[in-house]
């Protein structure tokens, strides 16, 4: 039944619907001032205005460009470093303690240092995203590459694979599910870090626009930024999940329904 399916769909996002209705009702009830909480309808109208004026495209485009560039660099460098650390004892000796200290640390604390050394522009902002997003990629890649079933490697060798072919043909594909999990952690991190970095470094971009709106006491502008960031983040995470499903078509999980 199409109706039942529709009801199930609506049920799945029921909590969001409740939240949205509560927002609108609270804002219109007069309990809070529109300055503290502008009605959702006003905020959405503002998102629409931003979209029409082209401001949204510029800010969103800049934020996505920086966050995704940082994410891509972190992904490539993190996988490469993770693999190297499992294969070269010297590389491991050098980076292992650094990763152990750096992974749990709030790296956003380095922001003033990045501003001081690298300035306030794209290079500095993207570097900040790379610095934050690379750690989960490194640790996931290391764990994945070390956890590859040795009998897969043995099978490949006895089927005629050379030591050199193992990395690309066996280790990387076998480690892919866990590496993708690391990337799925790194993607929202680079997005979060980019917003915060833009807020603190200023300039254009969603984070910068929100801080500017806040300085002008423009509440609808601030809340519009939150909605825009939430939607952009949701789309990115969904895209990543789709990519995972496409890449892991062979995996058992791809044959079962997933929630995220």
């Amino acid at each position, binding site marked *: 039944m199409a109706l039942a399916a529709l009801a199930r769909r609506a049920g799945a996002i029921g909590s969001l619907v409740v939240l949205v209705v509560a927002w609108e009702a609270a804002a219109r009830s007069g309990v809070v001032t529109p300055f503290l909480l502008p009605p959702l309808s006003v905020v959405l109208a503002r998102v629409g205005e931003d979209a029409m004026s082209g401001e949204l495209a510029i800010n969103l485009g800049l934020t996505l460009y920086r966050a995704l560039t940082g994410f891509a660099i972190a992904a490539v460098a993190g996988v490469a470093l993770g693999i190297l650390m499992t294969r070269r004892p010297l590389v491991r000796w050098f980076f292992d303690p650094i990763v152990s200290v750096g992974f749990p640390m709030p790296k956003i604390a380095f922001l003033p240092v990045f501003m001081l050394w690298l300035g306030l522009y794209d290079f500095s902002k993207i570097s900040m995203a790379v610095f934050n997003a690379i750690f989960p990629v490194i640790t996931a890649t290391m764990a994945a590459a070390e956890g590859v079933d040795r009998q897969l490697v043995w099978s490949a060798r*006895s*089927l005629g694979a050379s030591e050199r072919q193992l990395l690309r043909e066996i280790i990387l594909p076998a480690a892919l599910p866990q590496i993708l999990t690391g990337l799925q952690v790194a993607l929202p991190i680079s997005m979060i870090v980019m917003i915060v970095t833009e807020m603190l470094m200023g300039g254009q971009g969603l984070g910068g626009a929100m801080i500017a709106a806040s300085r002008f006491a423009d509440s609808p502008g601030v809340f519009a930024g939150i909605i825009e960031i939430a939607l952009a983040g949701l789309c990115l995470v969904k895209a990543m999940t789709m990519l995972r499903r496409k890449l892991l078509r062979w*995996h058992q999980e791809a*044959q079962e329904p997933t929630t995220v």
Partner: protein
Amino acid sequence: MSDPAHIVIERVSHEYRPARGRPVLALDNVSLSVQDREFLALLGPSGCGKSTLLYLVGGFLPVEQGRILVDERPIAGPGPDRGIVFQHFALFPWKTVIQNVLYGLEKQDLAREERLRRARQFIELVGLAGFEDSYPSQLSGGMKQRAAIARTLAIDPRVLLMDEPFGALDAQTRSLMQAELLGIWQRSRKTVIFVTHDVHEAVFLAERIAVMSARPGRIKEIVETHFDKDDPDLTRTREFVETVDHVWNLVRAEAIQAQRSGAA
């Protein structure tokens, strides 16, 4: 028949040295030779080192004490002359059945059409026609093992190393697979080393059974069987039943000892 033995294992010992704890002697001074085209079973209780011996012949573990010769040459690492089938299949899960079978063929100097032809031929041989494009996660245990056997047979290794290949299968599938393996061996006449802890399986399949002691693994006795493998009532003949009894008595003492020492 005066050919030198195909595989010669001479005074091989092997020690595992875990990162923490004392080293464990898995094999103690094992000598054994396997004739060309012979079907040899390595039989023993869990933890007796029979798989270790197989991995040494496969070249997956380094031979540190003693030596192992294949065709009179010491082995240097794994190679396509010695194919292996593992208990848990070790199929590449990101490849379909036919891609798995093609993997070894791609390492050989064959034309594309020839590779595809051979892959299809071996998939058909193990009864997986129609499942070429399935991923391993979509197959049952028995089908996975068939795919793994096809992958190994496709590269036409002279030696087939089998590490409890039917141990993970249910009883019906196991006995079907045993009969099929026997048929394949009779047709292709490869040298087979078959590791198992199943006495019946060893007596049914092998021409010679090397019974191993509990850890540290030694060869306790070698039992020769000369059965007519084509006899459909083979497993009910007195000779067969007596051999199973004899081998079982040899293994039982070792299994009890292995259990006491906590190796089972």
